[in-house]
């Protein structure tokens, strides 16, 4: 079977006739199942199927016939996939394919004896870097993994995007599967739950859908805020939830906000989501960001100088995904060039990102953003007014200008309605103090910091 397949020979011929872009859009996505009498092409979706059928099939059929010297060969096109013709690049193996196919069927039809969990094995507690920002969530997750169904149920993890909620959910699943390889654990995104349900309604298999979800031992469901406004899905999930809870099975949910704050979510769900334990994950502070970078680099087998980790961590505050993106950029560039990772090479690799940040973080922009955030006018911030409602935003803006720009204190003072540099120093001290004392100010400050440094 190491010879070229009929379909790859067809593709070579088609490449000469079909413009490249169309080839890459319509022909290259097709996978093939071949036998003597038939070339069955599989399109990823019906759009590709329809287009190919209308535009290329009449070209492919005679081509395939002439390549095989078989005028009765038929070419058909369906939607689907040739089981694992893809990345694994291993020679296709009939036995494993059929097992996989059976498992896939089991996944959709809920046959209890065939179950393959879909956890990402690299997301474990060991690879999860903990810090002040996620300690509590991590501790709770470990508890749940040790006593699924009996300690905190449901476990509700909330926090902004890219902070490691999904990692924790997989870590729970991985630890449970270690102790109990038979456990029926499903991780899925709430969007997928919804699609699954819609599909089951369309194909008249609602009962198998229900049966499948209700037979789980652990349901890890991500980004539950996507259920907002989807009444039918909420209705179904309500029942799934109840059955699992009644049977003592574990549910872990994640969300980008606190359950009560999800608009468009039924009250009865909101209250149920709060039955167990609700924990927050905050954006990681600098030390944790640096530790995360070092841990990720280690996983990639790269030694990352501390100063480089510190530099990236200081620059990227928004979320861990972007942190990872920047790190990968630095590592990939240095590996490609074949030079060690240094502070300079990191700066060079991230220069576009930094330039962009610098462009966005001007004193003017800070004033504007802060004014909008506190709902005051820029003129007020620049004015000599001293009422608390405008003095506080002004101090926050000055403090941010000091932290985020390279302007000197006198320059900053000047930009704030011609104030003295000592006023700027005072503002910075005051805000530092308040951030320690008042968690709301701390939160405001961090939100502004993130807004200004990303997006």
């Amino acid at each position: 079977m190491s010879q070229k397949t009929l379909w790859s020979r067809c593709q070579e011929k088609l490449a000469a006739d079909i413009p490249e872009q169309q080839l890459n859009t319509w022909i290259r996505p097709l996978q093939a199942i071949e036998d003597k009498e038939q070339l069955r092409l599989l399109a990823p979706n019906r759009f590709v199927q329809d287009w190919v059928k209308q535009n290329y099939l009449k070209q492919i059929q005679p081509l395939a016939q002439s390549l095989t010297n078989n005028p009765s060969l038929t070419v058909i096109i369906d939607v689907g996939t040739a089981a694992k013709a893809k990345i694994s690049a291993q020679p296709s193996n009939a036995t494993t394919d059929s097992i996989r196919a059976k498992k896939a069927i089991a996944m959709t039809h809920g046959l209890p004896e065939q179950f393959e969990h879909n956890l990402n094995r690299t997301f474990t507690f060991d690879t999860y870097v903990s810090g002040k920002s996620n300690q509590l969530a991590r501790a709770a997750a470990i508890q749940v993994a040790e006593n699924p169904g009996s300690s905190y149920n449901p476990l509700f993890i909330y926090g902004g995007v890219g902070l490691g909620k999904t990692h924790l959910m997989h870590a729970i699943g991985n630890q449970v599967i270690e102790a109990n390889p038979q456990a029926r654990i499903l991780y899925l995104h709430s969007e997928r739950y919804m699609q699954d349900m819609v599909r089951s309604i369309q194909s008249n298999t609602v009962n198998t859908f229900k049966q499948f979800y209700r037979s789980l031992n652990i349901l890890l469901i991500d980004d539950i805020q996507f259920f907002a406004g989807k009444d039918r899905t909420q209705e179904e999930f309500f029942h799934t939830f109840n059955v699992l809870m009644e049977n003592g099975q574990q549910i872990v949910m994640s969300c980008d906000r606190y359950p009560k704050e999800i608009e468009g979510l039924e009250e009865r769900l909101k209250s149920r989501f709060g039955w167990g334990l609700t924990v927050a994950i905050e954006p990681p502070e600098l030390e944790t960001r640096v530790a995360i970078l070092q841990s990720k680099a280690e996983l990639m087998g790269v030694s990352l100088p501390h100063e480089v980790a510190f530099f990236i961590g200081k620059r990227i505050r928004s979320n861990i995904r972007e942190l990872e993106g920047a790190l990968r950029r630095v590592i990939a560039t240095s590996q490609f060039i074949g030079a060690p990772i240094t502070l300079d090479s990191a700066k060079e690799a991230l220069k576009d990102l930094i330039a962009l940040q610098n462009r966005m973080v001007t004193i003017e922009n800070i004033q504007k953003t802060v004014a909008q955030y506190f709902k005051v006018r820029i003129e007020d911030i620049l004015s000599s007014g001293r009422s608390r409602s405008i003095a506080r935003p002004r101090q926050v803006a000055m403090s941010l200008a000091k932290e985020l720009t390279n302007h000197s204190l006198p320059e900053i003072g000047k930009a704030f309605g011609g104030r003295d540099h000592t006023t700027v120093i005072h503002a910075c001290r005051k805000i530092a103090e308040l951030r320690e004392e008042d968690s709301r100010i701390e939160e405001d400050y961090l939100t502004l910091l993130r807004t200004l440094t990303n997006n």
Partner: protein
Amino acid sequence: MSDTVQYAMQYVFDFGTQAQHTFEQFVPGANAVAMGLVTQLAERVGEPQLYLWGVPASGKTHMLQAACQRMGAQGLPAAYLSLAEALHPGVLDGLEQLALVALDDIQAVMGLEAWELALFDLINRLREQQVLLLLAAHVPPAMLAVRLPDLASRLSWGPVLRLETLDDAGKREVLRAHAAERGMELSDEVIHFMFAHLPRSLNSLLAGLEQLDRASMERQRRVTLPLAREVFISRIQPH
């Protein structure tokens, strides 16, 4: 004369149908690192996700097409999709069954809820199935008008690479490479003439090359300065 005018009009828009975008053909200029990383991705030894950005004609589409072509050469299914031309988010369905997905012009669908959701869901599926992903847009992720924060963070998951447009020397090199592929002889003076009389964007220079090639074939003449003059100057003159 008016024949030439019509002629030019007809073929300027036709450009591209014969051009092949491969890695071998890419003139890296200042984009050597980006090209290297995309090549590694397409050979499945690099990063699983890359985001390319740059002004039009900086080579984004070329990179994406070349990556698809390289996957095809390895017998692996890949898809190139320009989201500026795609009509329905359903075109993203099922793409996790492929080995590489290359999405061009993603800025075109930002702010559209159904698209953002579909793209977000696609990225999740691709990650799960370990499918390679190439993204391209005019601007970096932070400047896209994304509404869904879940999508925004996922776009920056891998390295973000800027492609810079070629300088004139680079453009000359591209012209020569394309000419060689067509079996055309392109002298320095013709290139010089083209730079002086055509807009200097790579796309218009390549369109010009196409015109010259066709004119040369049609009139059975070699590509010389007089021919270039006829083709380009007559094109600009009112009839």
